[in-house]
C-alpha cells in the first residue's frame, strides 16, 4: 500500500500542467470556469481538439499504431484531474473515445484508414444514435430498422433516435439499427455509420429544462446508407455496443469535475455575505461543504483503487456502477451547494427567447448560471444508465440474484 505517486507520474503531471498553462487559451478557460463549459461554441471545442491533437494528446487512449498515446489509467486520471482543475474544455467523446475503440477492434482496415484521420483533423464531428423514444434504459428494445435494398448496395434506414448530445454540430452519426426482427432482441442489431447530410435525416433540438439546446431527436425516413458503412458483421451490433459502453465508463466518477466544482463553491462562499460574515464561515454551510468534501476524498481514493486495478490489467466490474452512482450524487450535491451559495442572485436567467445571451445578468459573485447548471445536471443520474439501473446491476452481481 502506498498513496503517493511515482516520480514518473509526478513528472507527467508537471508536463500536463505546463502544457495547460501554456496552450489553453484564456477565452476557453473563462467559458468553462463555473459554467462547466456550457457556453462553448462548436468552434471553441474544435479549437481545443486541434491544440490537443498538435500535442498528440487528443486521443490518449488510442493504441500507438493508430496514432494514440497509449496512456495507462493513472496517466489518463492525472490528465483529467489537471484539465478539470485548469478549466479546460472536455474532449467531445463520441468519436474519439466511443466510436474509435469500436473501429479499432471491429472495424475494417479501410474504415480505420478512412475515418480515424478525419476524426483527428476535425473533418468529422460524430454523434451517437443509441437511445430511442420510449426505450428508456431498455436499450436493446430499439425499433429503428435498416433493410438492404434489392441491389444490396445500401441499407434503407427508418426510425427515430433521441437524446443525441450535440447532434446539432455533427455531420456523422453512429447508430444501432435493427436488421433482423425475427430473432431475440439482442441478436438482430447492427452498427452503422451514417452521413447526416444524407436525404431523409432531420435533426430536431430538445430544449432541456434549463433552456440548454444540447440534445436532439434525429429522424430517419428512407435514409440510404452504403453497405460499406456497416461496422463488423450484420446482427453483431449488440456486442460492439456493449464494448463501447464499457469505454464510455472511463472517468465515470467525475472526480476532477467535482474537485473543480467544490473549489468554485468555496471561492464563491468566501465573497458571498450572510449575516454580515462570509458565507463560508457559517457553520451550517461549512458543514455541508465539509461533508461533501469528505465524501469526495474517499471516492477519489476508490477511483484510484479502480484505476490502479485497471492499470494492473484488471477489469473494473460493478465498481464502475458504484462510482457512477456515488459520483453523480456528489456532483449533484456540489451543484446544489453552488446554487445555495448564490442566494437571491441564483434566480436571474438568460432567457434565450428574450435577451438571447447571458449579457446584462446581475452576477456580483461571478457565479455564472449556477441554478441552470443545477437543473441541467439532474441528467447525470438519468442518462448513460440511470442510477436505478446501476443499483440493479450492483445488486444482481453482488447477490448473484
Amino acid at each position, binding site marked *: 500500500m502506498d498513496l503517493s505517486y511515482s516520480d514518473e507520474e509526478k513528472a507527467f503531471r508537471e508536463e500536463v500542467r505546463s502544457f495547460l498553462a501554456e496552450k489553453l487559451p484564456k477565452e476557453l478557460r473563462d467559458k468553462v470556469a463555473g459554467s462547466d463549459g456550457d457556453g462553448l461554441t462548436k468552434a471553441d471545442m474544435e479549437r481545443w481538439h486541434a491544440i490537443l491533437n498538435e500535442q498528440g494528446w487528443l486521443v490518449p487512449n488510442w493504441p500507438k499504431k493508430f496514432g494514440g498515446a497509449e496512456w495507462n489509467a493513472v496517466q489518463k486520471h492525472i490528465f483529467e484531474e489537471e484539465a478539470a482543475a485548469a478549466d479546460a474544455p472536455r474532449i467531445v467523446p463520441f468519436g474519439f473515445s466511443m466510436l474509435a475503440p469500436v473501429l479499432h477492434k471491429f472495424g475494417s482496415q479501410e474504415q480505420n484508414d478512412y475515418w480515424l484521420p478525419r476524426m483527428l483533423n476535425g473533418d468529422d464531428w460524430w454523434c451517437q444514435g443509441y437511445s430511442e423514444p420510449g426505450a428508456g434504459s431498455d436499450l436493446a428494445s430499439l425499433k429503428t430498422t435498416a433493410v438492404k435494398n434489392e441491389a444490396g448496395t445500401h441499407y434503407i434506414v427508418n426510425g427515430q433516435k433521441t437524446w443525441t448530445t450535440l447532434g446539432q454540430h455533427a455531420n456523422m452519426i453512429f447508430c444501432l439499427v435493427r436488421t433482423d426482427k425475427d430473432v431475440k432482441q439482442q441478436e438482430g442489431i447492427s452498427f452503422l455509420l451514417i452521413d447526416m447530410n444524407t436525404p431523409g435525416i432531420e435533426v430536431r433540438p430538445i*430544449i432541456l429544462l434549463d433552456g440548454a439546446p444540447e440534445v436532439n431527436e434525429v429522424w430517419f425516413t428512407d435514409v440510404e446508407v452504403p453497405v460499406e458503412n456497416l461496422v463488423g458483421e450484420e446482427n453483431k451490433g449488440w456486442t460492439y455496443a456493449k464494448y463501447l459502453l464499457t469505454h464510455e465508463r472511463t472517468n465515470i466518477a467525475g472526480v476532477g469535475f467535482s474537485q473543480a466544482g467544490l473549489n468554485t463553491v468555496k471561492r464563491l462562499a468566501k465573497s458571498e*455575505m450572510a449575516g454580515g460574515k462570509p*458565507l463560508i464561515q457559517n457553520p451550517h454551510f461549512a458543514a455541508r461543504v465539509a461533508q461533501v468534501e469528505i465524501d469526495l476524498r474517499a471516492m477519489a481514493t476508490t477511483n484510484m483503487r479502480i484505476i490502479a486495478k485497471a492499470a494492473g490489467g484488471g477489469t473494473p466490474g460493478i465498481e464502475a456502477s458504484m462510482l457512477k452512482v456515488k459520483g453523480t450524487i456528489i456532483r449533484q450535491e456540489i451543484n446544489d451547494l453552488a446554487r445555495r451559495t448564490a442566494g*437571491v442572485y441564483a*434566480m*436571474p436567467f438568460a432567457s434565450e427567447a428574450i435577451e438571447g445571451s447571458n449579457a446584462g445578468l*446581475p452576477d456580483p459573485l461571478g457565479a455564472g448560471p449556477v441554478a441552470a447548471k443545477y*437543473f441541467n445536471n439532474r441528467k447525470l443520474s438519468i442518462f448513460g444508465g440511470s442510477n*436505478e439501473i446501476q*443499483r440493479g446491476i450492483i445488486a444482481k452481481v453482488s447477490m448473484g440474484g
Partner: protein
Amino acid sequence: MNFELTEERQMLQDTLRRFLRDRYDTATRNTILDSATGMSSEIWTELAELGVIGALFTEEQGGFGGKGFDIAVVFEELGRAGVVEPFLDTAVLAGGLVADLGDDTQAALVEEIIDGGCQLAFAHGEPTSRYDLNRVQTSAKADGDNIVLNGHKAVVVNAEAADHLVISARESGEPGDDAGLSLFLVPADTKGITIQGYALLAGGRAAEVMLDDVSIPASARLGKAGEAFAAIEARTAAAAVAQCAETLGAMETATALTKEYLMTRKQFGRPIGTFQALAHRMSDLLIEMEQARSAVINAAGHLEGDRKTREVNVSATKNLMGRAGRLVAEDSIQMHGGIAMTQEYELAHIAKRIVMADHRFGDTDHHLERFIALAAA
C-alpha cells in the same frame, strides 16, 4: 381544533382550481414565459375579477380575507397550476405594506390593486444583504421638505411592470440594525430610478433597481420614520406563507404527475410504478407531502399570532419546505427519467418553481439557524 376550510374558502378554492385547469395549461404558460413582460395581463384581470386579490386583504383594508389561511388557499392553487403572475409581489408584499402602513391617501391605492388595475413591487433586498431583512444600506436623507434616496436594490421581482415601488431605506443606524428603516411609496417613473430588468429561471421577471438622488416628498413615507422593520418582517412572514403554500401546490402537481407516469410508463414489460424501489420512493414522497401540508398549516395558522410564535412557525415551515421541496422536485424528475429533463414537459416548470422558492425570503439553512435562535430566545 378544526382543519376544515370555511365555506367561502372552499368556494374560492374550487373556482380557482377550475379556472386555472381550463385556462392555464403548459402551452399557455410557455407562451407567457417567452413573452417580453413574462406575464399575461389578461389572466391577471380575470383572476382579479374572480377575487384572487381581494382574498389577500382584510375587510378593513377593502378585501374579504387577508388571514393566513386565505393567503394559503389562494397560493396553493396558483402553485398547483404553476402561475407566474406576480400576485405575491403586488398584493401580499408591496400592496400589503401599503395597506398596513399607508395613510388614507396612500391606502386608496389598495382598491386599485384589488381591482387588478395596478402593479406594485417591493424594492428591499440589496446585493450584499442575502436573506437578512435589516441589512439595508440604501440611504434616505432629508433635503428641505423632500427626502432623497440613494442605493441599489437587488433582484426586485416585478419592478419593470410596477406602477409604484415600495422602497426601503435607512434614515439612521447601520446595516444590520432593525431601527432606522423607513418605507416609501414611490411612482416607478420618478426621476433618478433606473430599472435593469431580466427574466427569472422559474418564470416572471425581476430587476436591479438603481436609486440615484431620487427626490420624493416626505408624504411618500409609509408609516413612522425609522420604524418600518416590524412591518417588513410581518409582511415577509405573510409572503413566506404565500410562497410555501404555492410550493405545496406545485409539489402536489409534481407528485400527481409522477404517480400518473409511474402507472402508465412501461419498461421491461411492466408499469415502472410496480417496481418496488420506485413504489417505496413514491411512498416517501407522499409522506413528505403530508409533512409539507402540515407545515404550511402551522405557518398560516399562526400568521396572526404574536411575533415569536409567528416567526418560529415561519422559519420551521420554510426550512421543512426547502427540504421536502427539493426531495419532491429531484425525485419526481429522477423517477420520470429523460422526459422530465425537457422544457416542454409540465414537470420542468413545476420543479423549477419548487426549487427556486428556496432562494427567496431565506433558504432552508437560513431558517434552520433562525429557528434555533428564535427558539433559544
